[in-house]
């Protein structure tokens, strides 16, 4: 794979992740929007990830903990569990397991905010990209016919895409299924009221969220780490950075994770809030910083980060990751070629089973 192609691939991954977060924000905004009063429901709550306990009767994950991508508590009788699947495979066979797994949300969860911890019922929403929508809908219909999928609660497929006109909008469409309340369902079917992107990014409550319960592409997380380290430098170090052009900061991945979570992750403030970002993600990003020569590994979770005035950090992170991608692809291609050479009679099978 050429480096330029790898760069495009990494940039696309970053854009997909950012889009997914925007889509979740758009849906949160929509589900909390009160059409009558033309504002967000005052006591509504949004959780970009929340650890929920499943019941014994859960068909997929009994007596376990699951973390849906988004939970919205609009009122006592209206709550939603959302799973975003924006990076689905084009191959229906590869998609199948991911779709079947969504049934784990068809359960009476414990862990909702409030004294009881339960809600009467919730609707389940699968959020997919506009161009995946019809295929996913048809496949789910087939899975239901084949009795491999069923829902006791309301289940809806909502698609999302960005619309460019005089301004950028987020458009959501209910492609299939039922949602409460009926007015919301009708509005989402009509998709005549897109949401302005700038309202989402400046939303005081969740505008800051840039991470959800899925590993972000490394360049995004590295950029967030770079920003966070700079934002938490003492003013003496800021001065030193301006004067000498360089300052070293010792970081612990655990502390760094906390700071990242505070700046970019969901903040619900209780023990059901998932650790976003996960410590492993931060550790892996720090390893990449070491590869880039911006950081040194001291011991266990301790790193020394060298802060410099880097002019375009994202480009450097993207290039580094693209080189990694390119190397991996080349390595895999070489291995495949070797295997083919070794077993010439099975060339077709090897080719078919390549990852």
């Amino acid at each position, binding site marked *: 794979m050429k480096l330029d192609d790898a760069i495009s691939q990494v940039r696309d991954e970053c854009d997909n992740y950012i889009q997914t977060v925007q889509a979740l924000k758009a849906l949160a905004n929509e589900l909390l929007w009160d059409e009558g009063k033309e504002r967000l429901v005052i006591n509504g709550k949004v959780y970009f990830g929340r650890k929920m306990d499943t019941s014994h009767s859960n068909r997929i994950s009994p007596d376990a903990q699951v973390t849906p991508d988004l939970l919205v508590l609009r009122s006592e009788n209206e709550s939603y569990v959302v799973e975003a699947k924006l990076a689905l495979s084009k191959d229906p066979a590869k998609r199948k397991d991911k779709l079947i797994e969504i049934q784990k949300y068809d359960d009476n969860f414990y862990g909702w905010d409030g004294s009881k911890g339960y809600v009467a019922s919730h609707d389940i929403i699968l959020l997919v990209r506009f161009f995946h929508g019809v295929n996913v809908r048809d496949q789910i219909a087939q899975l239901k016919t084949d009795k491999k999928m069923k829902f006791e609660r309301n289940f809806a497929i909502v698609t999302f895409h960005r619309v460019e006109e005089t301004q950028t909008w987020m458009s959501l469409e209910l492609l299939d299924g039922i949602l409460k309340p009926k007015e919301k369902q009708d509005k989402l079917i009509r998709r005549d009221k897109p949401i302005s992107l700038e309202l989402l990014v400046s939303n005081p409550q969740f505008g800051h969220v840039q991470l959800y319960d899925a590993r972000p592409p490394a360049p995004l997380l590295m950029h967030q780490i770079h920003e966070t380290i*700079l934002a938490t430098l003492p003013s003496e170090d800021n001065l030193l950075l301006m004067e000498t052009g360089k300052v070293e900061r010792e970081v612990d991945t655990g502390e760094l994770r906390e700071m990242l979570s505070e700046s970019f992750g969901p903040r619900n403030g209780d023990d059901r809030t998932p650790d976003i970002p996960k410590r492993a993600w931060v550790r892996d990003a720090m390893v990449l910083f070491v590869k880039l020569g911006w950081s040194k590994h001291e011991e266990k979770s301790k790193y020394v980060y060298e802060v410099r005035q880097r002019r375009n950090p994202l480009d450097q992170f993207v290039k580094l990751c693209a080189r990694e991608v390119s190397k991996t692809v080349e390595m895999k291609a070489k291995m495949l070629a070797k295997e083919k050479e070794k077993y010439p009679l099975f060339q077709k099978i090897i080719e078919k089973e390549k990852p």
Partner: protein
Amino acid sequence: MHFQQKMESEFYVVHEKLGDLFEAASRVCYRGGQVQGGILSCDTEIDVLVERLQGGGAGARGIKVRSKKSPYLIQVRTDGRRLAPEKRKGAKAFIWEEKKKGIIYLLSCEDRENFERLSSKIERYLSPRLSKIFLRTSEIRSALNRLTENSKSLTLRVREYTSRSLIDDPGSHKRVRTNREWTDEDHRSVFEKLSEQREWISAIRLDVCGQSLASGKIRRDSTFSCARGFKYFFRTVVSTVKDAVVRSREFLGKRDQQSHPKRFARALKIEYEQPVFSDKRQNGRLVQTLKGLRNSALSVFHPNPYLHASLIDYTDGSSYEIWVTTQNSILIVPKRKATTGSIERVCDFICDKFQEGEIKDFPGQ
């Protein structure tokens, strides 16, 4: 003794009272010299700043406090290989505060260049407690209008101004031109003309005629210089500009996540009357402009058709998300840390180097 040296030796003495300093500044102007000054925003008391300036760190950086009470005399080493030998002697300025307003003044009789060196060295050392505030054309206009409305006998004559305007030629590599005009007009007609021609002000030199006479210049970075009638100029023009500085600071300050009890950031918008971004090439031009901001890093996540970028200000670790999702505005969302000085710097840079627009609060939903 050289004229400038003589003036400096008389000006830079320990003044017991602010009134004595003002008298000395007036004498400098009377003798044909000029005083330079600055209005800075401060979030602490001057004693705290002076204590820091008296510390070893300041000494090592060539900053010394030469007097024991306000107005404090500060001396700053202005070294640099490119400087002429006579400028390596250092620069001096007086510093005092206006307590209730959170304002610090600087006053010096150095030349403009030397004063800027001194001022930026002090600002950098005392950042983020001390920050520079920038004013837009509309703010300077309103301030001067208020001044003439409050004092009917006072008139302001514009003698010179520097402004900027857009270059319409699509083949041009520059977006903005700088214009300089020498004139003798009422300030209202000058601002009217600027508005009609869609120009924005960089600096304006005024003659103040009222109970007394004064002449001086004010700039969008809240610095000023005075060549005649210092006391009157300070009481009228500087004082009214100071009020605008306080308003700007209050509007733009404390917008980052860490300033809010619930960690909510407060976004703001630079809005234009025209659909500037209907031509998508302007996204690229904005990116190029922002790349020119000193001591900063710009990362572009999405360039077109909408713009999404992240801006890091290395001077104090502030950072922002920059969005262009409409045809007539730029949305700036402060992140974890965004100091007043940094927000001022970023907004002014966009307004001065890209195009001046109206800065508005954008509360979202």
